[in-house]
């Protein structure tokens, strides 16, 4: 094939590939938007509110192997480590889901009082 004949065909192929990729991205964005619209329908919102109202927690039923994976928001901070301090969670899902530890930051209601043996508090 001579170079002059090849260049327009290459250009057309490149434009086709580019257009296909752009169309793919556009289809992805349209699909995502439709998914959000579907989840935001009044009926879907009402169903979600009813179920969360019934279960009383926002937790997803992704794993029911352990209570701290099923209900991370309602499990106490040490739930995964109840059998031994700082014990690693043996369930693989423990790496992805776990009690939201930040929930306990600033949750202390009582101050810790320390009486020093010598001198003023440091």
């Amino acid at each position: 094939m001579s170079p002059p004949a090849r260049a327009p065909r290459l250009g057309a192929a490149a434009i086709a590939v580019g257009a296909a990729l752009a169309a793919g991205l556009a289809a992805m964005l349209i699909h995502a938007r439709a998914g959000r619209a579907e989840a935001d329908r009044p009926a879907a919102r009402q169903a979600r509110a009813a179920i969360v109202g019934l279960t009383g927690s926002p937790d997803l039923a992704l794993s029911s192997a352990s209570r701290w994976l099923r209900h991370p928001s309602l499990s106490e901070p040490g739930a995964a480590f109840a059998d031994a301090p700082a014990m690693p969670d043996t369930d693989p899902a423990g790496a992805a889901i776990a009690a939201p530890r930040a929930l306990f930051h600033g949750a202390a209601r009582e101050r810790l009082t320390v009486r020093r043996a010598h001198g003023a508090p440091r």
Partner: protein
Amino acid sequence: MKRHRALLAHALGALVRRRGRNAAVAVGLALVVALFTAVLFLGDALRAEVEAGARHVPDLAVQRLVAGRPALVPTDAARAVAAIPGVRTVTPRVWGYLYAPPISANVTVLGATGREALPPAVVAGRALRPGERGACVLGAALADALGVRVGDEIALAGNAGADAVRVLRVVGTFHDASALRTADLLVTSDTDARALLGVAEGFVTDLAVALSTPDEARVATDKIARLIPGARVVDKQRLRRAYALTLDGRSGLLTAALLPALAALLLLAWDRLTGLSEAERRELGVLKAVGWEVRDVLTARLWESALVAFAGATVGVLVAYVYVFVAQAPGLAGALFGWSALHPPLRLTPQVDAAQTLALVAGVAVPFIAVGLVPAWRAATLDPDRALRGQA
């Protein structure tokens, strides 16, 4: 413009001439981008799902801890909490976990007396009737695992053993659309839930508290803590914030773990772009000899890198989207489900928008093009005479 079109045409020709090398780099780039993006898409979708539900949780959930473990809350505590100024309603809840040996799975048992009403769209069959006993509504995954349909009866042995066997009629199953929240649920009356879970009369699992003014959660929390020894109060606002932080942190951690893969790919790209083959050297020598300037060669090489980078990154984003939202993330979903025998289909709502997509593609393509800059400059500054003679 004309010059750029000509250089782009040359870059396209070069892409085809070196198709093996360019395809390998584009496929590698697409793979790394797909991995990165899948984690990002999954994290965003899960965060949005939790956030959508968190709006409807009670203002406070009151639990009790004894020796660092959850303990039952005396029902009397509900009356005491209800008397606190600013508390609108207190709902004592009976719920817990029941291991079902036939399916080797933990079932979440929920007593729903007083909260039976559900929109018809949520269940196949019907919801529980007010005060109805001996009946249950099951999550779709649980019903599938047990092999039961609406109208069947199941005999479940409770936590208290053979004495606590309850026969429940399945009056409804939750639709798949709500499976993310209901997959492992068994909703029944408080009485049946107590029997299955072994929760004695006079005690409940926890209290759901609604406040007249949600902003006063902190004050109410302090008062409840004084009323109930060992109380642990989960505040709605803090819970929402904590969930967002946790999911951000965990998906961030996974993304960080993938960074070496991207670094390795960029290194590979650098290596590939730096090493000029004999044919490339001759090609550059000819181009320089016929009058191409340094900037022409540089621009053509950058066009070549840009085409590979944008194509690879775009394909990666598309693959990630299909992987997460169409194929339901096989592999990553397995990590989320862990050893759980009951889990829902991972049907998540995509949170992807145009700005995020653009940022993703550009965020990968720009460093990739930048990596090719120095090799492109080296190629552009080759001495044509030496290049044509095949000397370095």
